[in-house]
């Protein structure tokens, strides 16, 4: 009995220790600044239309170098001039961004056109409200997405891809769709191509070691691969979607109709930043030093893959829709006008 009583004391002690740990965790949480998302939601609901009033909104983005104009709108105070106090949340993919938007904690977010089309075809009301930094570039030197073939693979054109392995950063993405469409156009059965998901950084090694015979790769990894003997076959995005709108910043339709003024201020701010970027690339690229923790030299060497156009390209969106339908990714094509918002 005596030992049982002693045991009780320690057991209670153990419980207290756990509780104390919890209390410590709670107290650290109250001192930290993780409340921005919830305040953003409530503030945006009020509209913030009064002159001089600042509206808090939260934006989900996928970090990469084409965010330079977006970072510039934030760092230079353009968003602020338009009455917007934007909190940025870095996320791994547009799907995570859209899920957060559905929860109401984020009002704006980065999306790729295939994801936008996919959501819309499933009945989710989402619309592009501005470009990220423009549409697909017209100059091949600015197009960072390249289909390359490994040295010694014998591949010189799309036709040679039959029966070969192609590395793509993600399966059922725009890149994999491009490869399938290009193959079909060249008379190759798309299902004869083995598509392999490999991160961009591992693609040069995979090509050099012969694990794959081709890859859809982006800068700065393209330079490494080409330096090791890989050959550029084509620029899939330029071939298929010239001047195309392949990405955008979007919002939920319900949010847009409830807050038209905030959305038009957001659009105006982004358009201003993108237009400025067209003539001041070197200035805008320096936002990547802070935004992506690059060194100033590496930031300056980034290629912004854009034509800096602030108008959505409806033709390209409709082309992507019909490609997606053709390959069974969607069953119905949503009307393009329902996918974009214009002031």
């Amino acid at each position, binding site marked *: 009995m005596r030992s049982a009583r002693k*045991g009780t004391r320690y057991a*209670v002690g153990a419980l207290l220790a756990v509780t104390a740990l*919890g209390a410590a*965790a*709670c107290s650290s949480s109250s001192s930290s600044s993780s409340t921005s998302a919830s305040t953003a939601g409530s503030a945006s609901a009020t509209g913030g239309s009064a002159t001089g009033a600042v509206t808090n909104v939260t934006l989900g983005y996928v970090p990469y170098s084409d965010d330079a104009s977006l970072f510039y709108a934030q760092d230079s105070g353009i968003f602020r001039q338009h009455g917007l106090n934007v909190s940025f949340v870095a996320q791994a993919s547009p799907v995570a961004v859209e899920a957060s938007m559905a929860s109401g904690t984020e009002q704006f977010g980065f999306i790729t056109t295939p994801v936008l089309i996919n959501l819309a075809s499933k009945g989710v009301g989402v619309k592009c409200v501005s470009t990220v930094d423009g549409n697909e570039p017209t100059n091949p030197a600015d197009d960072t997405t390249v289909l390359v073939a490994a040295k010694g693979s014998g591949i010189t054109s799309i036709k040679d891809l039959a029966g070969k392995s192609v590395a793509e950063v993600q399966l059922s993405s725009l890149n994999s769709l491009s490869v399938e469409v290009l193959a079909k156009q060249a008379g190759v059965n798309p299902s004869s191509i083995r598509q392999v998901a490999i991160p961009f*950084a591992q693609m040069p090694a995979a090509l050099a070691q012969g694990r794959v015979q081709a890859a859809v790769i982006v800068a700065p990894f393209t330079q490494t691969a080409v330096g090791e003997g890989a050959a550029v076959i084509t620029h899939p995005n330029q071939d298929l979607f010239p001047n195309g709108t392949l990405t955008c910043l979007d919002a939920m339709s319900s949010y847009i109709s409830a807050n038209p003024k905030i959305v038009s201020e957001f659009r105006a701010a982004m358009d201003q930043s993108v237009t400025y970027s067209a003539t001041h690339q070197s200035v805008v690229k320096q936002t990547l030093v802070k935004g992506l923790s690059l060194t100033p030299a590496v930031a300056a060497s980034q290629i912004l893959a854009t034509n800096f156009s602030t108008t959505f390209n409806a033709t390209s969106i409709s082309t992507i829709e019909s490609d997606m339908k053709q390959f069974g990714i969607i069953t119905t094509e949503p009307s393009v006008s329902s996918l974009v918002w214009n002031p």
Partner: protein
Amino acid sequence: MLRRYSLTYGLRLAVLAAALGLWQGLSVAGVIRSDEFPSMSQTASALSDLLTQSTLWSAVGQTLEGWGLGLVIGAAAALLVGTFIGVNGFAYRSAIGVIEFFKAIPVIAILPIGLVLWGATLTMKFALVAFAVFWPLVIQVRYGVRSLDPVVRDTTTVLQIKGARKFFMVILPSAAPFVATGLRVAAAVALVVDIITELIGGGSGIGERILLAENAGPSDYPQMYAYIVVAGVLGMVLAGAFAVAERYVLHWHESQRAAKAEGQDRGYSERQVLVIVA
């Protein structure tokens, strides 16, 4: 005694040094390409830069926040439910199917649901951590409660000890070692889940910093691996802290007494963990 300690430490340091040396050697020899995987020295210098920056420490704080809240909520719920199904056979037989089902669901599969419900927020992080921690721990607590010595159980019946008194004086002390082991495992699981939610979902913390460094390209890879090293060290420190806490809190229990009698040099000692923490 001292000699034994120094030998153990010496060997551990030697293995660590050999592993780091191998990493550096492979990088220098060009077996590992630096644009794929940075060398040990690059990573170490990125880490030493980070140690002086507030970014790292606030990321560690944010990660610990999600970890701590999720672990406490999940563990408290598991303690309650586990005890209940431990003492009530009918409840156990009714609920075990559901528990086993949820236990098998990987958190990454329900991450999108968490995102849709709470967005990339602290709530999303700790809710998913609590979910991941709860199911295995509930089973562990149940086994702990069931492990009650039949003689002790019969004695409490004869002495008519019931209710809260029975729970605190008989059941909990008996279950404590099971709960402690479960918590130690749960602490590690919680950290992994927390960092995954940050990396994939976008909650703030170490996972988010890894994502940012990864997407910035090869020039940021040393930083990415520095954050990964930080995550590993954090896991070691937390596991060590739980092992120490277990020894102190449960020093009366036969499992700890037996371990002590076998010799002091068993896995973690307080001193070793202090060294790790320091």
